[in-house]
C-alpha cells in the first residue's frame, strides 16, 4: 500500500515540476503503465520512445560492451523529452523548458 502511494506521489512530484507536460512509465515492450497524457499520445510516446531507448541502449553497448545507457534526452523545437531507462521500465518526462522558464 505504502509502496503504491509512493509511486503515485513520486509521479505527482515530477509532474508538478515546472514546465512538465506529461509523465509516463512504460515497459520495454512499449506498453504504458502509468501516464498523465491523453491515451493517443500515451500510446505513441510509449511505443516510439521505448523503441528509441532500446536502440540507443544497444548503440551504447555496441560501442562499449561494459557501458550502458543511463539517460536519454531528446531536444525538439517544442519539447525536451527525457528518458530514464532501467532494466524493466522507462520513465518518460515531456517538458517544455521555454514555458517553465517564463
Amino acid at each position, binding site marked *: *500500500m505504502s*509502496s*503504491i*502511494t*509512493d*509511486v*503515485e*506521489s*513520486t*509521479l*505527482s*512530484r*515530477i*509532474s*508538478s*515540476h*515546472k*514546465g*512538465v507536460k506529461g*509523465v509516463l*512509465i*512504460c515497459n*520495454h*515492450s*512499449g*506498453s*504504458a*503503465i*502509468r*501516464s*498523465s*497524457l*491523453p*491515451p*493517443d499520445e*500515451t*500510446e*505513441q510516446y*510509449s*511505443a*516510439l520512445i*521505448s*523503441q528509441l531507448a532500446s536502440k540507443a541502449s544497444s548503440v551504447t553497448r555496441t560501442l562499449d560492451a561494459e557501458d550502458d545507457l*543511463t*539517460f536519454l*534526452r531528446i*531536444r525538439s*523545437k517544442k519539447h*525536451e523529452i*527525457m528518458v*530514464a531507462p*532501467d532494466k*524493466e*521500465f522507462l*520513465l518518460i*518526462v515531456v*517538458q517544455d*523548458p521555454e514555458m*517553465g*522558464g517564463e
Partner: protein
Amino acid sequence: MSEAKYTPSDSDQDHSSFDPSYKTGPSDPSSSPPNHPDPSESKQDPSLDDSSSLATSLKVSPFTDFSLPATVLAPAAASRFHGSLTQDSSTSCDLLSTKEQDTQAILTNDEGSQCDFKGDASHCKPIKRHSKEDKKEGESEDYDDDDYEEEKGDDEKADLLKFLKKVTPSMLDELRSNLESQAFDNVEKDWGGIGSEGSSDHLHSLTLEWSKIERTAREHGKGSLNDFGRNEAKTVSAEEEDIVGLETTGVAWNATGAIVIATFGLLNNPGWCNSRGALAAWNLTDRNFDSRKPSIFVEHSSHLMCVVGHPVKPAVFVAGSFNGEILVYDTSLPSPLTAASKIDDYFHREPISSLAFVPDSNSNGSYQLVSVSGDGKVLFWDIDKLKAPSRGVMVLKESKESSPRLGGSALAVQGEGGGDLWVGSEGGRVVRVQGRDKAPAKPGKMKACDMKWSTNALQAIYRVPAHQRDELIRSIEKRAKADKRRGVDLSALYAARPPFTSIFPVGTVFGYKGHVGRVGGLDCSSFSKKVFATGGSDGEVHVYNMLSKEPIRVMEGRGAVSAVKWSKTRSSILAWAGDGGVVVSDVISGEEVDLKPAWKENVTPPKEDEENDTSNQPSVLSSLFSPAPFSSLAFNGKVRNLIAAGDKNGVVHVWRLPQELVGRSQGGEEEFKNTFESIDK
C-alpha cells in the same frame, strides 16, 4: 454500458470481452455487467487488498495530474507503433479517456471478440474515488494472464517503486537544469536545410561612417598616404565630398580568414579618375571589433576597383586602382601602402578589374600576382618588384594577332604559374588564355647581347618570337645605353618601347559562348581543373567545362551578376552577387538560397544633430535601410562558413552559411566531376 464502451482507435481486431473474473473487486457487485459472471466470483487477486487500500489513498492523494488509470488495450492499436520491438503482442497497456465521468477499463485478449466495460452507467463516478476497477487499473494489474498477474502483481509494484526511486532524482535534476540551461538557446537558426528561410545567419553589416573616418584618417594616416597620393592640390572640403557615397568594389579575406577587406570606388567612372578611393579592413576576431569602424582604413588618390588577399601572408593585400595601378598593402605596418606599380602603356592604363594570386611554377612556395585590366592585357607580377610586370599576355578576341583586344572585366587562374587563365570581357566574351611561361627558368645568354642582362629581362627576350629577338635586343641596348644604364633589366626593356606584339604574346586560345553584356564574375572550381563559372550583366550564370564552347549549365541570376565564386569547401556550391542580391546555389541539385541582409539593432541611423551635414552623406542611412545591388563576393578560405559581399551602398555584409552549404558531402565531389567534366552529350 454501451456509451461507456471504449474501442481502441484504428484497431481492426476484435476485442476480447472483458473478463470480470479479476477485474472487479469484491466490493463492487453492483458494477458487474449483466452479461458477465458476477465479479464477486472473481478469483482473488493477491493485489486486491492493495487495490482497496489504493483506492483510499487515491482519494486523498495530491496527485492531480495523473487522473488516468492504466488499462489494457488491444494489442493491435498499440502495435501500430511497436514495430519490431514489441515483444509481447498479447497485451499492452494504455489509458482510458476521462472524457466521461467515469473511466472504464477494458481488457482485451487476442482471441476475444468484444470489448466491454466493467462498469455501467449507474456506476459512473470518478474512478479514482470509488471504483474498485479503477483501483486495479491504477495498479496496472491488468494482465489477462491470471497466473502472470498473480505472480507479478506485488513484484511489479515493488519493481516500479524501486525503479522510480532509482530514476527520479536524476530526472528531477535534469528537469531543473533544463529550465536553466542555455545550451539550446538560438539553436533553431541552424536547423534549416538548404532552401529554408533563416538558414543563413547575417552576421555583420560593415560600414564606413565617413565623417568619423575622415577625421581619423587625416590625423593618423595622412603622411603615409601622400607618399603615393596625387592631386593633393584639391581642397580638403572637396576631398571630403569625394569620398562619401562610394560603392564597395571588391571584397576579400586575408590568409587567416579573420580580416575582411574591402575597396571603395565607383564602377561607372568616366575617363580619368581624380576622386579618391579607399580601402578598409575589419578584423572580425578583434576584441574591439566595431562594424562601423574598420580596423584599418587607407585612402588612395583614385578609386580602387578590386582587392585580393595574399594566400599566405595574413597582412598582405593587393588592390587595383581605376587608373591602372597595382597597390600592395601590408596592414601590419603603420603606413600600409608598401608598393605601387606605375601607370604605363606596358603596364596597366585602364581600371584593373580583377586580381589573383597563383603559385609559382617552380613550386618554391612563392606566388605570382596576375592582373587583368580594361586595356586587354593580363600581366604577371612579382609583388616585391612592382617596377615592371615579369611578363604578360594579350587578351584578344581571337587567337590571331590582328584581332581586337578585349577589355578584361573578370579573371580566373588555375594551375601553377598561371597555366590556364580565363578572362571575361566588358563586351561579354569569355576566352581561355594560355598563361604558361615559355621561357626557361635559367635562360642562357643570347649571342646578340652586348650588355649585362638580368634574368627577368632575358626570360622576356626568350618569349619573343625567334626572328624578332636580335633586332629587339639591339634596340633595347641602344636605349639602355642612351639612358646610361649599366645593364638591361625589365624596366630598361619596357623603357625601350618594344613592339607590343613581340613582348606580349597573344594569349587567347579558345572562345566560349559568353554573355550578352559585361562579364562581371568568373571563377574556377576548386574541385575540378576543367570547370569554371561566369556571370554576366545579362543576368545569366554559366557553368562551363573548359573544353566545351557551350555552357553545361545556365542559371537565372535574378538581374545583372557582378561576381561569381565557387565554394572552396563544397564542390557543388556556387555563389553569385548582383542586382538581385546574393544567391548561394547548389549546381547539382539546383537548389538556391538567398542571402539577405538582416539589420540588427546595433545598426542605428546617425543622429540628425551631429555636426556634419547629413545631406552630404546619404551613405549610412540609405545604405542600411534600402537593399542595394551587390558588386563583389568572397568566400572565406579558412573560416569556411563565412561569406562576404559588398554592395553599391558601400556596405560589406558577412554571412555565416549553414553546414549544409559548406561541409563536404560524401560522394559530392565525384558527382560534381561526373556531371561537369564529361562533355559528350
